[in-house]
Each structure stands twice: as C-alpha cells, then as structure tokens.
C-alpha cells in the first residue's frame, strides 16, 4: 500500500518513510518529521548527512544595517524584521547564519581554525534543535525515528542524538526493528574527493561488515540502512570530477561515474537482505533490485526545500511496495 493511512495488521506489516541527506535544511527536516502523519508511516528512517555545509556571516555595520550574501550577491538588511526573515530563509536552504560585528567577520575570514570552531558550534546547535523538534512532534505517538550518520556528519552529533528522546541514533549496530525485522546501521562512506568527516576505505568496509553481519539473525528480514550505496548501480551514479573538482562534461552533459562501495555490493549480492536503504549520492534517485534485494536511494534536492523520500511497506517478510516520493 502506498500513501494509504489505514491501520496496519500485525503480520509484520510496517510502513516506513526513508529520507537522507537533508544537510541542515530546517524546512526539509520539518517535512521529514511531518511525513509520518502525511504518508501514514509507522517509522521514520533517516539515512545520514544531517548537517549542512556553509555558514553565512551577517556582519553588522556601524550604521546599524547588516551586510551579508545570498545567491552570490551582496545583501543589505536594514531592519531586524529583515534579519529574522533572512536567517529563516537561510536555515531552510541548509545554511547556518552567524550575526557578528564587521570586525569579527574580518577576523574570522582570516582565521580558518576559528571558522571551524564556529562551524561546529552552529552545526551542533541545529542538531540539538532538530532533536528537540522531533521529541516535541513525536511525543505521544507510536512513531519511531531511527537514524545513522553520513560521511559529512561531525562525530560530535552522535552524543547529542544518542541521548535525544524519540531519536534512535545508531552506528555500526544491528538492532531490532518494528514488525519483527532487523535493521543494520552503517554510516559514513567510501573516500570522497573532499576528505570528509567519516570516510572508510573498501578494506575498512570489509572489516565493518565482518563485524555487523554475524549480528543479523535472519537476512531475509533484515534492512540495511547504509549511507553509501552499492557501487556501479543507478543508486551511486554521479558526475565525474576532474582534478580541480570540476564536473567533466561532454556535449554539455555531465559525464557519469560511480561513487558507491564495492564491498557493500558484494555483501548484498551474497547475503541478499530484504531491503537496502542508501543516500550519499543526491543524483542517484532510484529503486533497483540486486537479486532479491530491493535497494533504494531517494536522492536529495534539499536546497529547494523539497523533501525526496521513499515510502516502503514491509509485509510478511517482503517488500510489499516501495515508492519514491517528493513533497
């Protein structure tokens, strides 16, 4: 059943909504929380990369106005009402804002270490806000929320989310899941050109799966929540980059390559879990089958404030339906 809102039966029937790579977008996270009610899901699954990528300084000037940047242009905010609106808009796009005197902006601009400290502070603040929002919205419901970290997520978010109510945050674990299923949690990704927070070589993935797989009691009822997608599939297809991290084009179209994990692909082929949930590659929006395993990457267009996801119904130990959504 897709989009339906009827009560589920007890025969292992679970409706889950999966999304990934929200990258700090407040509007997408709010939609994610509300999607349970909207789509009638029992479980919300977040596939990592919660945190954003950029801080926009808002520099207060001597005349009381604020100078900042938006869409590549200089923006002058004259009133506090404008300031509040601008901060809200940036938050919805996944940016972090920091109001500061012009002198402080000049100092930070010249000090990468200080920028990193500011970055981390703002990222962790937003993660706390999201955890509080989830607790507020999900309190009193039977809807659960599970999540893993992505390659872009600071390690410091683990402690915040692990202790947050209504936020079941796992990494490198296999846990029970509603309906008598199991979920295998494996965050991070294979190495990227940006050397991000949580990257693991293929050899490390071999070791990681060697640790996780023995914990799975019944692979046919196991859901893989693995941030990186399997290599060489539609789920990990992304633009090829040159040495300067520029997309390689031919005839105006980006040349495509793959950026997933070979080890994950091997594991799925060999062990055939019931379902694979993946993210990481925003362009890799697709649902495929690898043998009997249904694998899904919902993709991400978070800067547009649109939440892409997948609504999946499990029933009787099978994937009864799985559909990509956007809302």
């Amino acid at each position, binding site marked *: 059943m*897709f*989009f*339906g809102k*009827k009560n589920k039966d007890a025969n292992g029937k679970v409706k889950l909504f999966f999304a990934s*790579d929200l*990258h700090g977008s407040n509007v997408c996270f*709010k*939609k994610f929380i*509300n999607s349970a009610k*909207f789509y009638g899901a029992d479980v919300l699954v977040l596939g990592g990369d919660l945190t954003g*990528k*950029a*801080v*926009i*300084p808002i*520099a207060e000037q001597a005349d009381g106005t604020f100078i900042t*940047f938006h869409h*590549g*242009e*200089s923006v002058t905010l004259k009133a506090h009402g404008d300031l509040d609106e601008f901060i809200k808009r940036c938050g*919805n796009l996944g940016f972090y804002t920091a109001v500061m005197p012009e002198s402080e902006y000049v100092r930070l601009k010249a000090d990468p270490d200080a920028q990193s400290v500011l*970055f981390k502070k703002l990222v962790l603040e937003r993660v706390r806000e999201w955890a509080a929002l989830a607790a507020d919205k999900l309190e009193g419901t039977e809807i659960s929320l599970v999540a893993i970290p992505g*390659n*872009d997520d600071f390690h410091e978010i683990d402690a915040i989310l692990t202790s947050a109510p209504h936020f079941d945050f796992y990494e490198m674990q296999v846990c029970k899941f509603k309906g008598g299923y199991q979920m295998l949690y494996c965050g991070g*990704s294979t190495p*990227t050109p*940006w050397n*991000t*927070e949580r990257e693991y070589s293929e050899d490390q993935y071999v070791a990681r799966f060697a640790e996780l797989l023995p914990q799975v009691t019944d692979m046919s009822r196991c859901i893989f929540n693995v941030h990186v997608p399997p290599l*060489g*599939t539609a789920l990990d*297809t*992304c*633009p090829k980059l040159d040495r300067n*991290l*520029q*997309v390689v*084009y*031919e*005839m*105006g*179209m980006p*040349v495509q390559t793959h950026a997933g994990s070979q080890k994950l692909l091997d594991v799925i082929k060999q062990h055939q879990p019931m379902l694979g949930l993946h993210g*990481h*590659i*925003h*362009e890799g929006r697709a*649902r*495929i089958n*690898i043998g009997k395993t249904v694998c899904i990457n919902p993709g*991400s*267009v978070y*800067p*547009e404030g*649109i939440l892409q996801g997948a609504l999946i119904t499990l029933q009787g130990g099978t994937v009864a339906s799985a*559909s*990509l*959504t*956007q*809302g």
Partner: protein
Amino acid sequence: MSISDVTVEKRIFLRKASGLIRTASGTDTFIYNLGVVSIGLGVGSMLFYGPAFYPTGNLLWGCLVAGIAMAMISFGFIAWTVTIPRSGGIYVFGSRILPPALALTMSLVEIFAWLFYCAIAAYWIVILALAPMFSALGLLTGNESFLAISTWMLQPWATFLIGAAILILSGVILSFGMRFYLVLNKWVFILAMASTVLLIVVLAMSTREQFVANLNELVGPAMGIADPYNAIIASGKEKGWGEAGTNLWQTLLVSNWAFLPLIGAAFSIAIGGEIKSVEKSQTWGMLGAVVTATVAWIVTIYLALKVFGFEFLGTAAFNFLMADGGLTTPTDPAVTLLTGILTKSPVITILASLGFALWMWMWIPAMHTFGVRAIVAWAFDRVAPAPIAKISETYHTPIVAIVVTAIVNVIFMALFVFSPYFSKIVILIEAAVLAWSVILGAGIFFPYLRPQIYEKSPISNRRIFGLPMMTVACFLGFVGSQFYFWLLFLDPSAAGHDPTQVMIVVGVFVLGLAFYYVMKMIRKSQGVDVTLAFKEIPIE
C-alpha cells in the same frame, strides 16, 4: 554528495564537505541547446518548405521574428528554471502550481510532441538527406542504381522502414547509457558543424550562373529540356505558384518553420538541476542558442537564395509537393541535392548530405531522452505503471521507458508516413506550444500563488515595473508562445486547424486527462492516493 547545492560565494564560510563542486556552465548549456536546435535542420526545412508554401514570405525576416519570439519564451523558462532548478522540464514546473491532472496532461502533450519530433526527424533524414544524396550521386556519376535507391527511399514503406530503423537505433543507443550516447553525440556534433561550415563556404564561393549551368548540364538531358532551371520556374508559376512582392502575413507564417527547430533552445529546462550559476548559465545557454541559430540561418539562407534563387527553390519544391505534372528535380529539391549539383562533387555531396542527416539525427536521441526522463518521473509519482521506472542492472538505464518511448516513436513514424491526418508536420507541436503556454501563463501568477517557493528563487527580490521578475518574464513567454500557437493554428501548410487536426490536438489533451484519471482510479483501488505525490508536506 550533490552537484547542485552550493556554489562558492564571497562572505560565506565553507567546510570540508562533499558536494561543493560546480556543474554545467553556460557554455555547456549553450552547446546542449544548440545541438537540439539543429542548425542544419532549420536550413533544410526553411529552404524546402518556405519558398514553396509562402511565395511572398521573406525567409530572412521570418527567421528574425521566430528568434525574437523564442527569446521571449526563453525569458519565461529562464525564470521558471531559476526558481525551480530541477531536471525534468515542464512537468516539474507544472506539478508545483497546477492541479495534478493538468500538470500530467501538459507533460504528456509535450512528450507526445517531442516523440513526434523524433519521427519527423527520422522522416527528414530520409527525405531531405539520404534520398537527395543518392539522387545527386546518380546525376553526378551517371550510375542509375543511385537514382533507383533514391526513388525507392521515397516510397512510403521504404521511408517508414528506414525511419523506424533510425528510431530503434536511438533506443538501442540510449539503452547503453548516457555516456555512450554522449561520446557518440560529440562526434556527431563536430561532423554536423563541419558540414554546415562547408555548406556556407561552398555557397559563399558560388554563383547563380554556376548553379544554373550545372543544373542544365546534369538534369537537362534526362528531362529532355535545354534549360530546366527556367523551365521549372515557368512550370511552377503555371501550376499556381507565386505572387508578386513581399507579404507580412506570409512572412509571419513562414517563420513557423524557423520556430519549429528553435524550440530546442529551451531544452536545457530538462537538465536544470545539473547547471551551476543557473541564472547566468541558463540565460546564456538559451539566448545564446537562439541568437547563434538565428544568425547562422540568416547567413546560410541568404547565401542559398543568392545561389539557387527564391523562385527556383519555391517552384521546384511546389511542383514536387503539390503540383501534379509540374517540372521539378529528379528527386525532392532539398538543399543537399542542390549543393551536389552546384559543386558537381560526389565528395561534397556526400559530406553535405551526411551533415544534414547528422543534424537531424541529433534531435532524435535528445528528444527521446526528454521523453524517457518525463515518463520515469511519472512512474516515480505513481501516475504511470511502476515498471516504467525499472532500471537495467547491466547498463543502469531505464530500459522499459526507453522501449516504450521507442515503440511510440515508431507508431508516430507510421502515422506520419501512412496517415494524411498526421502528415501536417507540426500538428502536435501546436499542442506542445499550447502546453508551454499554459505553463508560462501559470508562471505569471506563481510568485503570488506559491510565495514560499518563489522566495527561495535568486530573482525573488527583483521587480520590473513593480511586478515580480518572474511574472514579467513569464508574461513575455506566454505572449511569445501564444503568438506561435495562433500562427501555427492559422497556417494550413504547417499545422492548421481543420476539424481533424483540431480533434488530434484536443484528443491529445483529453488523452492526458484520461490517462491521469484512469491511473488515479487504479492507484486508489490499490490504496494509493496519487494526489499526495503533488502536494507539499506541511511544515507546521
């Protein structure tokens, strides 16, 4: 990791995170659009149909009018794609403001038109490139087999079979993946551009006298006439071609044939999510393609008219297309045949002809891809059967969607070749232009009806005459698209409005609505509410 989320800006602190990369530039976008415009196709169709159907029309002014209107339409689509920078064309735009049934209908109409374009291009490869090439080779070498091949190609079944093979080839290429297609396309584009340059050089270095002398020498003996050039003109006039002077209305109507390929200049809306600095890139990409194609056409057509003569082009095609018993060239008087006669060179004939064929070919996989992307998006939204989105495990391509669209292409080819109802070449384009018009019209009101989305647009703070920039740009686009809808509607040679044709256009819209409601009922029986796919999840 994404290619389209954040661009490096001043006064912004970035951290080490995946996705901070640039995507398609304005130049990339320009090349993409220009490839779909197909300069060669515009030259071929304008010179073939223009003088024949519109004897008092001015082809050069027609090109200019079409260029201006397409620039206006581009302004509207630039506003749309800047505001919603996602891949997928008008389906993406429509699904954000129109009722679901209407959004899907507009998309279906558009896709039908583009797939019909594929069939037209395959037809033209046979009619305007291959058949004239073999005819010219027959004349130049004296080999009757070439002439026989040319004659055979113009038989309906032969045209259909060759066209269908071309369309199936497009599907095969796409099924191997975009990379394979793009590598192939790179060479096609280079060769097609080279052939256009060759044609311009040949025309620039030639004279009317040279063409007349060669035509009379090569064609005269076969026709048993000493001066076929003037005999064809006289025959055409006798059969009813031509009036004196230049007529504004005919000039506007002939511009339909320039507008037809110019539509490709806005095709980068299909890849909007992959373009960096979207405002600058799309502006340069769309308007650059419009200006370049228009200028190339004006130059080439001016030279062709100088060498071949308007009256000869008009009467030769008129006699070929419409006048029984009228004198004309041994096969259709396409510019490829005439270039072969002009140069008396089999090599240049082959190069020019293949160049035209390649330009026309470029349409086919590009528009085929457009259709594939759209119906996959429908399947994602559950308004089309789920298997359409199935991905080939071997090539990672939507193989079912490719096959379905290839079958539709072949059906259109058959309708085009065998049915008089679909032989009015741009009848479905009329429907697509109307669909564009609806989307552009909706864009006028978008800033007011969807302020929460529009506020994220980089143009949200800009106003023209006190109105949101998108409102003004989409109004211009709406006017441009309406202008061409009515020009096509009132042009019996290009599209027209006889009852059968109107029923075809209306039928496509009705089919779209019926398709949506049937799918909605099917999904409802499965417990699926497809309307949720078009709704925004509440944030409060």
